């Protein structure tokens, strides 16, 4: 029961955020809509073709592209999650007083494990673009 009486105060900072989200979304829709209503629209075959520096369009853009982009996306997920792990560690680091030595060792172990993976990725050439 205590949660329900305290909850409104705790979530108070988020009320303006919700209003802001609504306001910004409304603005985006308004901008797109206004421009759609006010602008003229005359289609010609050349105008609606994809732009290729004025040359006749060659083929479709839905081609296969380099696998490197997928690799980067996967590496990003690994390292970004690792950043997420580090944020609570960093916030708690100085508040634990004498325990922070333990935290420091833990982070060194974490970094060592991460480092092995990082060196492996580097040596296998996943970070190489050519």
């Amino acid at each position, binding site marked *: 029961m205590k949660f329900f009486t305290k909850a409104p105060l705790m979530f108070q900072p988020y009320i303006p955020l919700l209003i*802001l989200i609504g306001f910004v979304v409304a603005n985006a829709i308004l901008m797109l809509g206004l421009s759609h209503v006010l602008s003229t629209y005359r289609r010609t075959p050349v105008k609606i073709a994809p732009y290729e520096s004025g040359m006749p369009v060659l083929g479709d853009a839905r081609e296969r592209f380099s696998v490197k982009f997928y690799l980067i996306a996967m590496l990003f997920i690994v390292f970004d999650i690792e950043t997420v792990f580090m944020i609570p560690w960093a916030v708690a680091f100085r508040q634990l007083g004498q325990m922070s030595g333990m935290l420091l060792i833990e982070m060194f172990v974490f970094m060592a494990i991460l480092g092995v993976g990082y060196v492996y990725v580097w040596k296998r050439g996943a970070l190489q673009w050519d």
Partner: protein
Amino acid sequence: MSPELKGFILLSILKMLVVFTVVLVGVALLTLMERKVSAWMQNRRGPNRVGWAGLLQPAADGLKNIVKEETFPAVANTGLFLLAPAMAFIPALLLSGVIPWAAPLPISVDDFGEAIHAGLTSLYLEPTGRFISWLFHLVFGPVSFHGVLSGAVADLPVGFLFILAVSSLGVYGIALAGWSSNSKYALLGGLRSSAQMVSYEVAMGVSLIPVLLLSGNVSFSEIINRQQAGTWYIFPLFLSFFLYFVSGFAETNRLPFDLPEAESELIAGYHTEYSAMKFSMFFIAEYSNVVTVSAVASALFFGGWDVPFISVDPAHPGLLGTVNLGLLFTLLSALVMFVKTMTFIFVVMWIRWTLPRFRYDQLMALGWKVMLPMALGYVMIISTAIYVIEHGLGIESARTQSWILFGLNLILAYGVFGLLDRGRIVSGSNSRTRVPGPGPVAGARRVA
């Protein structure tokens, strides 16, 4: 709804309208500033026809973009094509809502209707005041507010995390724009941009960890308070700022990392097929991201709204003493924050005409092979240093700690700027031009 909560919401909406207007008008004026700064650096005049010194140029451009013809490429995915500019625009403008733009303002008003009445009466507008006050009571009923109003639209307890999370949403707009246009230039630009943004986001996230180590909090107001009590974090965490600012350039697709829209290679990158207001929205998003990066840099490393040498905390007086929070100080602090942010925005424009564009493989190598390990190593060095200073040397004063870390940073900065890389990890621009094969062609003269 209680009058107190109503007052909080009304004041928040007021703040939101002010911040939103200032950011949108500011972004429009930034396009003019960019052109003027470019012109100044290239010894020409820049826009000077529309309005005084070209001040109405952004308004003319905006008006033109609203009434211009929209083009929809026949092969594009219309739904996603329309969604993409909104997806870029929304997160970019949401970010401005959690940054504290001014010092908190203590407000104590029992009834806002009465306050409006009293205020207008003092300006000899008694009948108007009575009417507005009556209208206010009719619409909102009793509204009161007692407390400290934060300088941010939404002073989230997790403001820092919000910035990191929402700024990474911007990549959706760009990836969608590139893919849904179904044009080769747009696709390449979108792919490049998303790979670049996610790469540098890792470096950016890790480079900000030392700030959390020192402040022990993820709310912007608390981080700024800690900087007032100690020193601005630029001193103890200089390299952190450097890494953050460099990744900021990559995150906002600015030169020297503007590969996604390298004009000479990709026309305009992911927004090649966009015209009219949809193009404008990408532009607004890009500039508003520049504003956010600059504002976050000044909030995290340069004390945000903190006026130099003046403190609001009697426990930690500044060199020129302490002041009480109030309307005057809030306005002064907003001005200080504005100057700090504008300085960084100017640096961003300055860099544009100073450094040439990176090659794509150099860009990715810099992000993954230099910035990321540097940021990770820096986190470990700073955390070890903090542990040694606090528990080994037993120094408690935040200011002394900061200056010791500053000394450490000077040593590290020499290592970074003087010794690291030098073309060993990120290949230099001429390392590939050496053609393997049998010597120079007979008769060809070597050009020195």
